């Protein structure tokens, strides 16, 4: 050791007198060219890490992180989907042997057994052999599990309606005035459960984007259509007219107008 004298304890001290810098274990039993971690190997790792980081940054620039519209608990028509690494669990829950009355099998028992087996792998596979070809049972179980994870993830992705998924979460800015008494008193209690909290669509259609006039809306609300119930009798004619005018007046606006000038100092106005 060139620099530093080190701490020297003697006698029954817990730290022994420091003599040789090599405290690490001896790798002489390993064949071939062993190199020290610092600096040669670390430099190579550093370069690999830098290349990886550049690729990673390119990914973040090319694909910005997604953000859907603000959470709206009243929008019951939304089809939920977990992030991709939980899709396999989600898919297992859709099989008939693991859903409904057997939900506990799909939600708890299967994942529980898999996790427990993974955790206890060193004791389940207590064969001395390390090479995977010499412990076929363990290797086969792992390959099977990986196969199931890949297959169920693929199945979940392949059978999902991605167009609806993208559409239902889209951020739409409108001139909707959430303080308006028509909105707070009439629309919140009658319309938003199907048409979404900001009327941008749920199980029922989007009311902001289409160019509707008040008479059309009035006819739909009074008489209903398809899934939509008729509100004649439940609401007065005057109320229906107020709703119709409010809805007819809705239109898509730019983010700046809707957010009320957030550009300047980030004082976001409450858009919901």
């Amino acid at each position: 050791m060139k620099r530093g004298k080190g701490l020297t304890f003697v006698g029954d001290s817990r730290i022994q007198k420091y003599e040789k810098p090599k405290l690490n274990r001896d790798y002489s039993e390993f064949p071939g060219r062993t190199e020290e971690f610092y600096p040669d190997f670390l430099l190579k790792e550093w370069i690999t890490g830098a290349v990886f980081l550049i690729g990673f940054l390119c990914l973040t620039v090319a694909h910005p992180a997604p953000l859907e519209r603000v959470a709206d608990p009243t929008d019951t028509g939304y089809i939920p989907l977990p992030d991709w690494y939980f899709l396999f669990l989600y898919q297992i829950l859709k099989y008939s042997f693991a859903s409904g009355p057997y939900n506990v099998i799909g939600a708890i028992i299967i994942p529980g057994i898999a996790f427990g087996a993974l955790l206890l792998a060193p004791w389940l596979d207590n064969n001395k052999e390390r090479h995977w070809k010499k412990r076929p049972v363990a290797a086969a179980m792992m390959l099977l599990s990986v196969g199931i994870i890949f297959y169920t993830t693929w199945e979940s992705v392949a059978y999902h309606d991605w167009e609806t998924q993208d559409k239902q979460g889209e951020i739409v800015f409108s001139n909707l005035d959430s303080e308006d008494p028509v909105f707070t008193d009439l629309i919140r209690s009658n319309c938003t459960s199907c048409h979404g909290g900001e009327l941008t669509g749920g199980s029922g259609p989007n009311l902001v984007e289409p160019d509707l006039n008040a008479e059309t809306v009035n006819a739909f609300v009074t008489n209903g259509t398809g899934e939509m119930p008729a509100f004649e009798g439940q609401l007065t004619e005057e109320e229906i007219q107020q709703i119709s005018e409010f809805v007819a007046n809705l239109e898509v606006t730019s983010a700046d107008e809707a957010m009320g000038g957030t550009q300047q100092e980030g004082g976001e106005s409450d858009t919901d």
Partner: protein
Amino acid sequence: MLNRIYDWIDDRMDITPIWRDVADHEVPEHVNPAYHFSAFVYCFGGLTFFITVIQILSGMFLTMYYVPDIVNAWNSVYYLQHDVAAGVIVRGMHHWGASLVVVMMFLHTLRVFFTGAYKAPRELNWVVGVLLFAVMLGLAFTGYLLPWDMKALFATKVGLDIAESVPFVGEWIKTLLAGDEQIIGAQTLTRFFAIHVFFLPAALFVLMAIHFIMIRRQGIAGPL
């Protein structure tokens, strides 16, 4: 000057053994991709650590703007994404890093499994590794709710329903996570924020420290 500072500290703390242990530990040929390209499979653990560091740093910067309440959460994320300089990059790193860390950890687990590196005397390190995997998935799950967009809310609803279906303690777990028996709302968001930013990272750091100390104590498993 630097040498004298080092010596001064070393005379009191005896840091040389630790430093030499880090610097001089040998990297055997069978794990060195410079000699055998196929040894790149031994890089997955290191890459997992690297991305974890990216996650910690990008997450620290995200909390500078993020507000964990249901009125402002989405707005703060929207503002970060659209108006803050490089906000889209930082959030993108955290978002894609979450996916990559799961991928790398999965590959690392498979490498350790198929090379039989978890066999005696390294069983405990395998167990710690599996626990790390669980903590990472917990971080992925709790982080998903934080932007408070549609996807976040409804995916969390599904997750909490699954938690609720655990026999006997299910409803208790759900209430613990969500802050209420029924409502997924303001309480849920602050709880998930606390779990994502304080509880699970604390567990992660402790487990990672144990994981790495054990690697240095036991050394790398030999060639197959």
